[in-house]
């Protein structure tokens, strides 16, 4: 019996899936570099991430500066929605994959939202490192200014030039500026690095919660007030 045909059968399609970054198989290469034979010796996860996302091995200064910036980014607390959501996932008995997925989705949304708030500025930095930051990129208070001062001090030690760190920007904009200076220049790449750096803390916080221990969770925080409206 002949299977019925439809529009999918009537078209010509490639038979193979294209791999652009990693060679499939037992001895993977990333953008042409042998992972197990060469990269892993003396490399780091940050180096691998930058290679994957930019297509090239980072210069030492860029690698060290990104390591610093991602450590500044990594410390997300349970006060922040992605971690809070992961905690609720764990509390509600979600399986391991789901807890991590919940955290990852929340972190990706958090990073995307923060990046969108900066408008075109991060991408303007790629060609004009002195591009004027928008108001949304500026530090909101002295604590944030102090954090960016600490970041600038550490990044200066690496030798990577990031003029934007002296423009009064806030923490999120400063971290983004360092990543852009290290040639991370697409929204997906920026968000991926931020998620990568923050995911461990978010999952670790969720792992501290006992599944089913609903009484320990502040259910009425914050307060919701229902108003019937038809």
């Amino acid at each position, binding site marked *: 019996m002949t299977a019925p045909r439809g529009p999918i059968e009537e078209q010509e399609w490639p038979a*193979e899936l294209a791999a652009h970054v990693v060679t*499939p198989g037992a001895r993977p290469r990333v953008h*042409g570099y042998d992972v197990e034979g060469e990269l892993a010796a003396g490399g780091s996860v940050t180096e691998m991430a930058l290679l994957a996302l930019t297509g090239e091995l980072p210069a030492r200064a860029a690698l060290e500066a990104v390591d610093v910036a991602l450590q500044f980014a990594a410390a997300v607390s349970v006060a922040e929605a992605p971690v809070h959501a992961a905690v609720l996932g764990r509390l509600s008995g979600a399986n391991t*994959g*789901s807890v991590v997925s919940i955290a990852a989705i929340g972190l990706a949304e958090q990073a995307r939202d923060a990046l969108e708030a900066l408008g075109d500025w991060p991408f303007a930095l790629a060609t004009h490192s002195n591009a004027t930051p928008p108001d949304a990129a500026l530090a909101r208070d002295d604590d944030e200014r102090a954090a960016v001062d600490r970041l600038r001090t550490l990044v200066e030690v690496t030798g990577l030039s990031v003029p934007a760190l002296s423009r009064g920007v806030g923490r999120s904009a400063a971290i983004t500026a360092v990543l852009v200076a290290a040639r991370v220049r697409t929204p997906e790449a920026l968000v991926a690095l931020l998620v990568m750096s923050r995911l461990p803390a978010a999952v670790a916080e969720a792992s501290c919660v006992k599944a089913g221990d609903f009484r320990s969770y502040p259910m009425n925080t914050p307060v919701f007030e*229902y108003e019937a409206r038809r």
Partner: protein
Amino acid sequence: MTDEARGHVIKTHVARAGWDEHEYRGYRVFGELAGATSMSGLLAVAVGGLRLSPDDERMLDDLAVCMAVAEPRIWPLKLTRLVASYGGTMAGFSAGCGIVDGTLVGAWTSVAAAQALRALSDDVGDRIDDDDHVSACAAALVTRTRRLIGFGVPFRPRDERVAALGRCIEARGRSGCRHWRLLSALAAAATRLKALEVNVGAAAAAVMLDLGFSPHDVAPMVFLINANLFLSNATEGAAQREPILRELPASLVRYVGRPPRPVCRPAT
């Protein structure tokens, strides 16, 4: 609780849980909705706060059925299968939800189409029965819109779902509804001026607007009535746990990236 937290109250119009009764979008769940509202009707309450008539609910059912193309090779559904191949139905379903959160594929295309229909409705004003005027307004909208979302049918001459939906609408005596009429005019103009056929995204938008949903509510409604497409694939995919989906054999993957090169770490 701090004063700051105590003073911050989030207003919600969605729901409140009580002891013997619950409220949902302004309705008593047991007292008003139970026994009187279908699943489609409940979705309308959930998203738009709309209480549909039984005939409106059946129209929504017709739309859901006409959109039911669950072919697992279609991109969002294949994605669902890929993630579900590790055995997690809801993981596959959740991943599938992610792919439709854009303006190229999925429910959000209907929002843009709904906005276009609303704009056309504004242009037409109270002259909906003036066919020449409606055609002229539709042609003007098609001409000034660079990318007409909800139009264009890949890989086949026309969208069979629109035709099936049209038959349902005819059978229910709803072909005279304002937005469906406007869609017909817009479809004719798009075919004439840009050789574009209307797809089910725009058709769904027209039906939703005629049911009383706002353009913003169209996307979640379309997603909800299409959720069965993802769940059917997630359920079967999780049960099958297909090894070939978890990892394609080497013969089906072609590396097109950089050639092998030695590691030479930049010094500065």
